[in-house]
């Protein structure tokens, strides 16, 4: 076995998202320093790394929520840098932000149906309720009255309706109880089986290991390593060093 870095396994499909030499800035501060990575159709890929390594910034850069970006972000061959911010999700990219972003002035149903449908083939509300039974019968509840785990489910659920094929999940397990994390894990695996392509930011790589095909490790605003999931055990020491755990 080679040491794993940069070997390509799990070639599920063609490249869906290609990021090359991405630099990103918030105002004066330079937060992404040449990120390069690739996500293939149907893959679940995680971004691992310490706080401040640039994982969330990479996601925000993909969505265009960043002051200035240089380099290249291609989604199914279309360049996203320079594209109007509201057009990016319309290509079929769904974003579940770290803070979940459930709207307190909207009911659960209004939160669920807020993101416009951008493509055919999205999940229906009954299908979503099957995936997240906790959301059933809660439609008129104020969005932020749900528990943290339910808010996370709602944040994922509302993207599934839109027909987005690439989903960016930012720390879906943060601050949740183990039993809820398990439920989220079941849901993410179900999504993978449905053919969604998923980019996942995780601090909890034990959780990541149960669902991901490959892991990109980020440090100081760029990707330093790529570890296929089946070589995760063999690379555990290295990973511990990267993550400082």
């Amino acid at each position, binding site marked *: 076995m080679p040491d794993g870095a940069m070997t390509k396994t799990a070639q599920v499909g063609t490249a869906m998202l290609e990021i090359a030499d991405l630099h990103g800035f918030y105002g004066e501060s330079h937060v992404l320093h040449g990120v390069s990575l690739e996500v293939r159709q149907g893959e679940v890929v995680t971004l691992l790394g310490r706080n401040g390594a640039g994982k969330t910034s990479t996601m925000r850069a993909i*969505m*265009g*929520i960043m002051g200035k970006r240089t380099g290249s972000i291609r989604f199914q061959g279309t360049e996203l840098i320079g594209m*109007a*911010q*509201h*057009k*990016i*999700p*319309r290509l079929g990219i769904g*974003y579940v*932000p770290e803070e979940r*972003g459930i*709207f*307190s*002035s*909207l009911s659960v149903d*209004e939160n669920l*149906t*807020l*993101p*416009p449908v*951008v493509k055919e083939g999205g999940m229906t509300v009954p299908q979503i309720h099957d995936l997240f039974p906790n959301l059933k019968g809660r439609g008129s509840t104020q969005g932020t009255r749900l528990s943290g785990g339910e808010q996370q489910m709602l944040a994922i659920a509302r993207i599934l309706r*839109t027909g987005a094929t690439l989903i960016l999940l930012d720390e879906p397990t943060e601050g949740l109880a183990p039993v809820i994390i398990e439920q989220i894990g079941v849901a993410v695996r179900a999504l993978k089986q449905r053919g969604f392509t998923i980019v996942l930011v995780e601090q909890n790589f034990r959780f990541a290991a149960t669902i991901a095909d490959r892991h990109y490790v980020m440090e100081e605003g760029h990707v330093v390593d790529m570890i296929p999931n089946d070589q995760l055990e063999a690379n555990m020491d290295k990973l511990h060093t990267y993550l400082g755990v």
Partner: protein
Amino acid sequence: MFQLLGIPPQALFGQLLLGLINGSFYALLSLGLAVIFGMLNVINFAHGALYMVGAFVAWLLLTSVGVGYWGALVLAPLTVGLLGIVLEKTMLSRLYKLDHLYGLLLTFGLALILEGAFRHQYGVSGQPYPIPDALKGGQNLGFMFLPNYRAWVVIASLTICFGTWFAIERTKLGAYLRAATENPTLVQAFGINVPVMVSLTYGFGVALAGLAGVLAAPIYQVSPLMGSNLIIVVFAVVVIGGMGSILGAIVTGLGLGLLEGLTKIFYPEASNIVVFVIMAIVLLIKPAGLFGRER
């Protein structure tokens, strides 16, 4: 003739009606301010001036083109709304990244320019605007005489206020507006063109002011200063109701209008300051306003 607390009923109901009319205008204007503040975080000081522009558009339509009241009721808000969208696109939108104070200063300057320009052109004396034929006359209710036009103003503004409330709180479009008020970045990340929404919201908010101007024209006459007389009270209404609260703006507007009317009967000397006294008390007890949420 019976008396109520020593007040003849004609005087009591007359003042209450006057209060209700004033309250209708407070509600319409503070509603527009609330919608704008919620979405843009801009305290729109040009609101009173745009209300005045609405009244002048109605007057100009009548005197130079011959378009009457009912046409003006549609055309004047449209004109003011379009003017608002142009102002937002060309000027206000450049200030969102700066402190809120800049938006306030810009709109204050715009108000001065608009009022100055109309004053230069038409002088300070009011231009009369006739009540439309269909609404002339009135009803004798037994205890008081109710002019038809005033009844129409109350009904029209209540309908518009609650229609707007319904549209914002109960429809899909309103859900976008509420969501974008809370977290515009995320709504944009769902594929909605938030800058366009912001322009349209500003246009809609000031169109309400323009509409209030048309409704006011037959009652208060059309004068360049009609807005600045009203707007200070309206700002107090918004503060009392809670910045950005839709229902708060409507309920507080009507309530304070009535309260002003009552004060005129029982203690006329205080009628001009009662709103501000209440504002001070509300700010002491509940700084976010009666219907406001703490931010």
